[in-house]
């Protein structure tokens, strides 16, 4: 029972941290970034490069965050900016971008499955049982990311400007806020978070050019259901991720794979606002 509860909580938090970058971009830019899966992959390869270079595997996620932020700024400038008023085209263009990134990775690193060293292995004792140490670490990081994003949005000037742009962009511009810059920074932040998440989940997985793809659709569904707020993304991850664990454990792991998609589509049909808390 404890294990099941831990499975649910850690799965939810992992889903949260993986989806956070997508949510940030959708929230501020109203833009669905289908290159999210590719960004996760970039994070995995960053982890591999960092550990191959002999650096501490703990540096993988921060390095991925920094790299993703820089790449995100560039990508926003070149590809995303012309698509702000064409949301469906933006999905397609970012999907295309994902293909390009995946192929570039393949050209650079080869298409085969590779490995990155883990910062830690084995289990941690937890009450009367023990549990995967790295899953617990990732869960902790996810909570920190949630807290950090909340602080960024609610305690800083950038966060205030970003929220103003989300709520009413023309009014924000009329007050002298450069919404273009807010968007660019946000895209960088979202890309950085996605890359960092990719680096974080790498110790649980292997590194290959398509490693991020399976996460894309689930992240997408969670973010849409959550209606882009941090607490509701947390809630959506917990409910839908929990359902996935339950279905996988008690019904079939294969049906577990589509739990999130089916539940999200149904929830959005019943209430187009999903689980939005505000």
């Amino acid at each position: 029972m404890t294990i099941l509860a831990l499975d649910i909580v850690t799965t939810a938090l992992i889903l949260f941290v993986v989806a956070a970058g997508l949510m940030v971009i959708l929230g501020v830019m109203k833009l669905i970034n289908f290159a999210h899966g590719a960004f996760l992959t970039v994070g995995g390869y960053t982890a591999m490069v960092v550990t191959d270079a002999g650096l501490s595997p703990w540096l993988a996620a921060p390095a991925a965050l920094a790299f993703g932020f820089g790449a995100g700024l560039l990508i926003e400038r070149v590809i995303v900016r012309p698509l702000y008023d064409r949301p469906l085209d933006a999905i397609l263009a970012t999907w295309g971008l994902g293909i390009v990134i995946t192929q570039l990775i393949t050209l650079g690193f080869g298409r085969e499955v590779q490995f990155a060293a883990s910062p830690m292995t084995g289990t941690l004792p937890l009450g009367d049982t023990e549990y995967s140490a790295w899953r617990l670490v990732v869960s902790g990081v996810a909570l920190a990311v949630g807290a950090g994003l909340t602080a960024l949005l609610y305690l800083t000037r950038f966060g205030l400007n970003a929220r103003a742009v989300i709520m009413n962009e023309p009014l924000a511009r009329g007050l002298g806020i450069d919404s273009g810059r807010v968007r660019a920074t946000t895209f960088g932040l979202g890309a950085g978070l996605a890359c960092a998440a990719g680096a974080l989940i790498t110790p649980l997985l292997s590194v290959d050019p398509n490693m991020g793809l399976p996460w894309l659709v689930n992240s997408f569904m969670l973010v849409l259901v959550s209606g882009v707020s941090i607490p509701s993304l947390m809630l959506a991850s917990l409910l839908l991720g929990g359902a996935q664990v339950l279905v996988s454990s008690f019904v079939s792991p294969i049906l577990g794979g589509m739990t999130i998609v089916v539940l999200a589509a149904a929830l959005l049909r019943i209430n187009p606002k999903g689980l939005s808390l505000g």
Partner: protein
Amino acid sequence: MTWKTQATLALLAVAALAGGASAQETVKIGIPVGLSGANSVVAPSVVQSSELAAEEINAAGGILGRQIELIVADDGSGAQGAQRAFDSLVFQSEVDVLISMETSAARNAGLPIVNRGRTPYIYTSFYEGRSCSPWMYVNAWVPEQQVAPIVDHFMAEFEAKTFYLIGSDYAFGRGMLEFTRAYVEANGGTVLGEDYLPMDGSDWTAIISNLRAAAPDALITSTAGGAPNVTLTKQLRAAGVDIPYGNLAVDEGTAKAMGADATGIFIAASYLTSIDSAENKAFLSAMEAKFGADLKTPNDLSVPQYEAIYAYKAAAEAAGSTDAEAVIDALDDVAVTGPRGVIQMNKQRHAPLTMYLGQVLADGSVEVISTFENVDPGEQCPQFSG
């Protein structure tokens, strides 16, 4: 895979396109293999051993006096890619023979094309058994040859009564585990659970929790070769699972690549680098000499590939031509001595094999625990029993 090998492949393919004029002079061997996808971990080693075989044979005068030309095509480890690869090799490059290590999905997708193109096909991957085609021979193991050593060892050595089975949901995974379940139950054991994840699945959390809840004496897994095997093993280790762990799909190279996580895994194989024979030592040193630092550890998938090329040479020479039907007829009769010993595919298109039970050590090498001579593949394709 690096830029360099890729460029080589590209050159090979370009050479194949441009080489129409010299088609009469070379023997074309098509190698559809999973350079991307699940098999990408082992595929480079298969390509390397093929290259060595071709180089050795060409240096010794080729087949029937003709040089060998290898044409490698990526099958993406799946059915869709295999169709393209087989189509291109059979109908575009018009190869004389297909020799390849592939996933079961890719093999199944390729067989109709092989049948249509009437091309001999030597399948060099261990698999779930009972795949039959008038154009296909198999020189690697099937469950009848491989499962018994591991289960027997677990039952005898660890007094294992209860087993848990985990696999990738595809023909090989299910085929192996269904055989294992039957074998366990026939020997008085119990199977507490049998769980599958799709081939592209990477989150084994729920399955591992079910496994821990069931608390079996031993675990046997049969996943797709590359990524699923790695993610499952990593997550098992991360969850602290330390019961006897038999892995039906891991090869020596992958075990080495997985590092510490692979330590202690039991494997049953028809080839291990530690086999003490002159042929094996000669093979290993030739590989070392040819590839040096780029060498991928030879393994239970790349060695049958090496031997199959020699088997084709022997059959073509016995038949006196590369005519497809003549070669198919001759393949039954030729025996080839290679790193694994003497191999003859005369049991319903399959081969009796010497099997080794081993355990992965901390340095990634495999320690041989026991040896089973000439294990029979059993009833695979009765229609070819003549």
